[in-house]
């Protein structure tokens, strides 16, 4: 076991998969000579050369589509978006091409491609660089959506995503690249897409979260342990397909739930989770489910306002307290 940063874990996953399978290549802005805008692809150009680590022009639509075309004829492209905000320029190729081709062709052309890059807010990047799009892509049949919270999960899930035969949207985080560090097994392991994990076991309330919000939820759980509230934290890890059974099993045990996400509240990931819980665990609930999310505004630049908009451990703790003190005793 070695302790790796989230960034190093992703880099290791790419390196291992490129060594294992010659059809895997990386394309994106600054992925080669610059070693990646966030250094996720560090060293890969030297190791694999320009056809496998391709510096693209700033043309997201074009190089995302290039990846889709290459995947149709059997390559396994990993398309890096410098951030998912820029991927809005390429969303036609993700949603209209990658997600549709297998079905439109009657099962003839599957598209084994990974679109990856950081999502969500970082530090005062303002409205156009601070957005979470999990619910957008999670809405689309034909896509899989992965958003890991730990280095361990990032590596195992990126390797699974590269080997997957369908398009995967893989959402990372600028804030986690360097600050999240955890133990990663030496050598080969895979984490299946579509499996959530209980990151902390508890009996009083279930918190469902993904990506950065797992860490905020774990911090809230630690804090509430001192107050005598025993919190279970379920890390979704994959947004689509959702691991509903793991969430439902937890809620049937704790009878209360708080659903947390960084993105906007309307039509969000949390809205889907709440629906799944009410359909499959309604009779087990002792209180209405609470949601915690970013505020329903474009991210402001001013530091105090960003702090106000971004959901943190304090917001999660407040929601947990509310859920645990309302409803049936």
């Amino acid at each position, binding site marked *: 076991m070695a302790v790796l940063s989230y960034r190093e874990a992703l880099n290791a996953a790419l390196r291992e998969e490129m060594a294992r399978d010659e059809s895997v*290549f990386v394309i994106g802005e600054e992925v080669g000579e610059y070693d990646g805008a966030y250094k996720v692809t560090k060293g890969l150009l030297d190791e694999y050369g320009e*056809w496998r680590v391709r510096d*693209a*022009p700033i*043309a997201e*639509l*074009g*190089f*995302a*589509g*290039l*990846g*889709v*075309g*290459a*995947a*149709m*004829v*059997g*390559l396994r*492209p990993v398309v890096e978006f410098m951030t998912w905000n820029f991927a809005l320029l390429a969303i*036609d*190729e993700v949603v*209209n*091409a990658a997600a549709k*081709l*297998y*079905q*439109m*062709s*009657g*099962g*003839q*052309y*599957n598209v084994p491609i990974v679109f990856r890059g950081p999502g969500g807010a970082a530090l005062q990047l303002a409205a156009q660089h601070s957005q979470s799009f999990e619910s957008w892509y999670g809405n689309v*049949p*034909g896509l*899989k959506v992965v958003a890991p919270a730990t280095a361990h999960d990032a590596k195992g899930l990126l390797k699974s995503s590269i080997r*997957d*035969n*369908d398009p995967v949207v893989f959402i990372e985080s600028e804030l986690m690249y360097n600050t999240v560090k955890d133990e990663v097994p030496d050598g080969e392991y895979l984490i299946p897409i*579509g499996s959530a994990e209980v990151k902390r076991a508890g009996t009083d309330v279930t918190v469902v979260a993904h990506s950065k919000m797992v860490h905020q939820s774990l911090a809230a759980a630690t804090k509430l342990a001192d107050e005598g509230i025993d919190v279970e934290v379920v890390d979704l890890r994959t947004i689509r*397909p959702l691991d*509903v059974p793991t969430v439902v099993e937890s809620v049937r045990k704790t009878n209360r739930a708080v659903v947390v996400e960084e993105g906007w509240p309307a039509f969000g990931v949390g809205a889907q989770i709440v629906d799944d819980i009410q*359909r499959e665990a309604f009779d087990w609930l002792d209180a209405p489910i609470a949601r915690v999310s970013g505020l329903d505004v474009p991210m402001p630049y001013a530091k105090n306002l960003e702090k106000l908009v971004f959901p943190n451990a304090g917001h999660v703790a407040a929601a947990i307290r509310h859920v645990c003190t309302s409803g049936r005793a």
Partner: protein
Amino acid sequence: MTGESAESIASGAGAGDAGDPELQAAGDSGVEAAGDSGLQAADGTELAAPPTNGRPDSRADAFLGLTREECREHLRLMILARRFEEKAAEAYQMGKIGGFCHLYIGQEAVAAGTIPPLRADDYVITAYRDHAQALVRGISPGSVMAELFGRVDGCSKGLGGSMHMFDRSLNFLGGHGIVGSHLPLAIGVGYAIRYRDGDQVCLCCFGDSVVNIGAFHESLNMAARWKLPVVFVLENNSYGMGTDIHRVTAVEELKDRGGAYDGLVSLDVDGMDVLAVRQAMEDAIARARSDKTPSFIEARCYRYMGHSMADPSHGTYRTREEVERWRSDDAILQFRRKLIDAGRLSEEEYETLDREAIAEAEAAVEFADRSPVPDPDAAYRYVYSDEYRHDIRRRDAWRGEFG
């Protein structure tokens, strides 16, 4: 009798002016010699003579070194595409085909000139006006018609429809419905060819309105910079739906749009002349195979019908006279006349080809009529290629409780 048959070919489906003698007269006199289509680079310089692909020097021969049988095959493909789509239009009007149905009638020389010179291991990708490309590449008329009908024997099993014909066994990478969106896919295919050190070529066809969309420039730029073996064929039929391309485009010659990219050969060609198209395509294929040079070919052609079956054939954006003028230069009649004049085709042979094409189109309709509709589970079968498809089936199961 040959006159009647030729008129109905030129008039296209349901146009109702098949008997116009002036049209026919103009059609007979409007034939031009092959090779006058101006194979020039965007800067106006003549292109160097291309390799001859093992044939006798094709430029010394008005028929590009093609045998009599090969010439007739080109004509056959054009007639088949025309007669097939006339049948499709009838079926659409009978309600057997739904959704959008974009007919290619008038533009057949482009498909018949660009696809036959390709090898079986080359690739073809095109836009939503894709019936003729599918037929010329070799998808059976029955399979294309069944796809239009939404039946399981369609080339996309009834899940794609008019705009999404696919056949992996023929490297036919589809009909794509978003204007310009498949050009990036084409350069991805070109990238994969170079990645594997292959010598295949990817043909990418699209309409004139694509020159104004970002994907066009992003794709040509990358194809030129990385030398990706893609032949971009712009089918300039003058209109993006109902908008004259020149009303919305700040360049007079569309081929000049390709001239902005070093390392990409850009030219135009008479898209109503199948041999001129073929010659330009042969040259482009040779460049792509030998040193991976991509090409951009503007083929000037015309669609006789509306943008889709929802539109009248000429509409408010063009005159009846304009449509008739182009019909008088009809690609099929032009080529037929050229072959007859050269003694490469008899009137009787032409009649036979036409009769057989009509019979094939009718058989395609019968085949499609007999083909079953997809079973309900097919809605789920092709969303994902792995076991997750069962999971979404489960997630949707609740709807059945109320149904």
